[in-house]
């Protein structure tokens, strides 16, 4: 039966950086490669902050595979890098350029729609020569199995496809990884939620005092986010700014915080608004889940003919304040392509998965994603008691004295800049909130700014987005509508809010038999496919069919 299915040597699912890298490597090895991307345009589904890194130590960076990318598809090189520790209106800045440049050959700000659609054209040209090619608007909905073994993929729009090698580069909330039983979406503490606004900034060069080939990245931490663990960023693009924040999902849920309001708190704070043009003009509001590789990078991301690369495998590294996902997706994608080519040459195509995983470890990629030091310290550092003691100490006069002393010798800035330290930062209140707040309180100066940033309401933000909605065929189904099971989504969903009826999730009171009950209801029309409710609510969660749903113009 399945002999009749179309067959390709390799199928790559997803045309983000991971998929593009895998496709380039496979095509260069002369392997017939089919790339399937669910967005009508590549990049239409994708969001990043985004600083794209090329690491010295990595076996592959994107420009090894696509040499023209920096001149044709990225925004600006980032040449200045700071962290702003905030407490109320006082701010203490540390220069982190050294940390940023550590192991960095180059790093450019990017917007995903532009970059991914440029990549997709190159991917198509290269894979077409092998007899494959890239197709947009095709959603892969599962794995094709034969006698229990994974042999291909099934799709919404076209018939099943068999392949000798299947690369799941389908990003966070990978349906293929879930289908293969390699990933689940159960634990909020394993994920971050990133939320972002692209803001008009025609005068970037003047405002930041930079040339066209220079760029600035400011990071923000401290008491900006109502105690929610996370950090903010502001990156310069060609004529826009990417301003956003990345939060620990468990912390967001615990605080029942509204992501869009936290983003607004950053935008409105003078530490950030000083960089924004008056009047404030938002080009796009976006959000997406981000895996925390320290906890979810799969130690053996393969099964039969399937390998997972990039976010699909949880390979997204939060190295302290620095977020590295795209570069690791690129490395993993290229290693996967290399592994399959080697396996084929040896006449053992089925060994590709193991060869890929070997390469992940040998290249040092796995060590970055799951740093040993973090794992060793985690049991102590993340114990509640430890956090409490350290935080109390830091906030005490002794702690403040220590902070002052460390700063006076320049040690504090150096510690912040230490790649070694940043890789072992515990996921607690301490580094995200307490320490930066104490630093700012003790050492900071007051910032003020006249710019009045008046961010659009959530309703306006949704109204500005482009959708091809899934009316009549919702891609998310609420399995348990009780407040206990799914209520967290009302606040955590970036396009929902309590007391707001125009979002995806809302809490409703229903009356029956004289009693009233609060339940959660879902409308997927405004959904931006961020993946949050797949983790924090009880749902049957899928991406919409090809071309359907949100279409990001910036990303």
């Amino acid at each position, binding site marked *: 039966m399945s002999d009749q299915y*179309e067959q*390709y040597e390799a199928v790559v699912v997803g045309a983000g950086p991971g998929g593009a890298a895998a496709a380039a490597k496979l095509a260069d090895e002369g392997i017939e490669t089919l790339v399937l991307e669910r967005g009508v345009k590549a990049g239409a589904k994708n969001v990043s902050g985004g600083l794209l890194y090329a690491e010295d130590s990595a076996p592959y960076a994107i420009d090894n595979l696509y040499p023209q990318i920096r001149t044709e598809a990225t925004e600006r090189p980032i040449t200045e890098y700071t962290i702003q520790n905030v407490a109320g209106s006082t701010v203490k800045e540390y220069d982190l350029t050294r940390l940023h440049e550590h192991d960095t050959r180059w790093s450019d700000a990017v917007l995903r729609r532009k970059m991914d659609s440029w990549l997709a054209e190159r991917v*198509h040209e290269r894979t077409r020569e092998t007899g*494959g*090619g890239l*197709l947009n608007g*095709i959603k892969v909905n599962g794995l094709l199995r034969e006698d229990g073994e994974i042999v291909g993929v099934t799709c919404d729009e*076209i018939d099943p*496809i068999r392949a000798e090698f299947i690369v799941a580069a389908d990003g966070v909330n990978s349906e293929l990884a879930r289908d293969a039983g390699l990933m689940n979406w159960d634990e909020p503490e394993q994920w971050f939620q990133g939320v972002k606004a692209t803001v008009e900034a025609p005068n970037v060069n003047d405002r930041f005092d930079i040339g066209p080939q220079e760029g600035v990245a400011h990071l923000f931490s401290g008491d900006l986010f109502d105690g929610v663990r996370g950090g903010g960023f502001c990156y310069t693009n060609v004529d826009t700014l990417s301003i956003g924040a990345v939060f620990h999902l468990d912390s967001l849920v615990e605080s029942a915080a509204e992501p869009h309001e936290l983003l607004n708190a950053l935008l409105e704070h003078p530490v950030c608004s000083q960089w924004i043009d008056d009047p404030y003009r938002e080009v796009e509001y976006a959000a997406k889940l981000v895996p925390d590789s320290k906890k979810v990078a799969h130690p053996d991301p393969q099964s039969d003919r399937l390998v997972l690369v990039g976010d699909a495998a949880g390979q997204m590294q939060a190295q302290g304040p620095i977020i590295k996902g795209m570069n690791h997706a690129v490395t993993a994608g290229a290693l996967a392509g290399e592994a399959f080519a080697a396996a084929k040459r040896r006449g053992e195509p089925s060994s590709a998965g193991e060869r890929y995983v070997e390469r992940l470890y040998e290249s040092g990629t796995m060590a970055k994603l799951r740093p040993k030091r973090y794992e060793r310290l985690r049991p102590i550092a993340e114990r509640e008691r430890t956090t409490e003691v350290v935080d109390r100490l830091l906030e005490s006069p002794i702690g403040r004295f220590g902070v002052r002393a460390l700063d006076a010798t320049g040690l504090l800035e150096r510690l912040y800049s230490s790649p070694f330290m940043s890789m072992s930062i515990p996921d607690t209140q301490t580094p995200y909130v307490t320490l930066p707040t104490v630093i700012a309180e003790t050492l900071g100066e007051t910032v003020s700014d006249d710019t009045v940033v008046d961010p659009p309401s959530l309703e306006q933000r949704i109204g500005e987005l482009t959708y091809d909605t899934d009316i009549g065929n919702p891609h998310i189904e609420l399995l348990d509508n009780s407040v206990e099971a799914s209520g967290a989504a009302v606040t955590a969903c970036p396009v929902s809010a309590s007391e707001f009826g125009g979002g995806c999730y809302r809490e409703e009171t229903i009356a029956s038999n004289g009693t009233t009950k609060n339940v959660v209801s879902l409308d997927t029309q405004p959904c931006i496919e961020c993946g949050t409710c797949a983790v924090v609510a009880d749902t049957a969660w899928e991406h919409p069919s090809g071309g359907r749903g949100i279409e990001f113009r910036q990303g």
Partner: protein
Amino acid sequence: MHSIVLTKGVPDFREGQVSFDEDGHLERGKTPTVMNPNDEHALQAALQTKVRHGGRVSVMSMGPPGYGDVLQEAMESVYADDLYLLSDRELAAADTWATAIALSTGIEKLGLPDLVFAGFKTADGETGHTGPQTCWALDIPMITHVTELSVDSDERRVRARRLVEGDVAEVETVEAPLPACIVVDPEFESDYRTAGEQLALKDLRETTAERAVEYDQHLTTWDHSDLNLDPDYIGLDGSPTIVSSVDPIPKPPAEREATMVDPGDEEAMGELFDEMAAFSGGA
């Protein structure tokens, strides 16, 4: 596999700019022309055949030189390889029979293809005859009301699902040897269920985008002498159909009489209401 699609420009009724001459003939020159909406399905059927079996699609139309735009539109939607326009003053105002004679002559001049596709009725004439009459003139089998199509190029046969008598409820599957003529029903839906087909489609889209810009380089225009047609048998003179009159529904010649009434003039207003009462029905 070579297919020829017959397409026709029709006045753009949507714009409401249709104009008629004194004899009740459409003044094509003064009316914007678009592709007959039903021909879209014929074009899609031809495209599907090309994607699945390769080969070439030619689009042929009869009409004034301005039909170039229509053919360009056809080229873009079906990724056609070449375009043929039968255009001649002598061919003007032909009815469907004369059109069919001209088209079949054009097709024969081009060489009988494997498949001739025609749309179901045109939006202006609404006779639905041109396709069948052309096939009749070519003396090849014809399948009408086709909603699904598959071609066996080795066996040189075409198999089609068709609506019986144009009735959606009743369908049948029929086969015919090639060459054959397919009249495509508006219910026709092309489908591309394999990656290979989708990739082929994408290739065609890319190569055609460039070609459609300079479509006139792929356009051949023939007049009656190129086709060796006797003017007596074509055009208005050769059209056996006699149209008694045409009701120009879209935009009646505006020769209404208007009487100005001053709303302040009670007597005049009273008369007006009396006059209008006749049209108000009911009370």
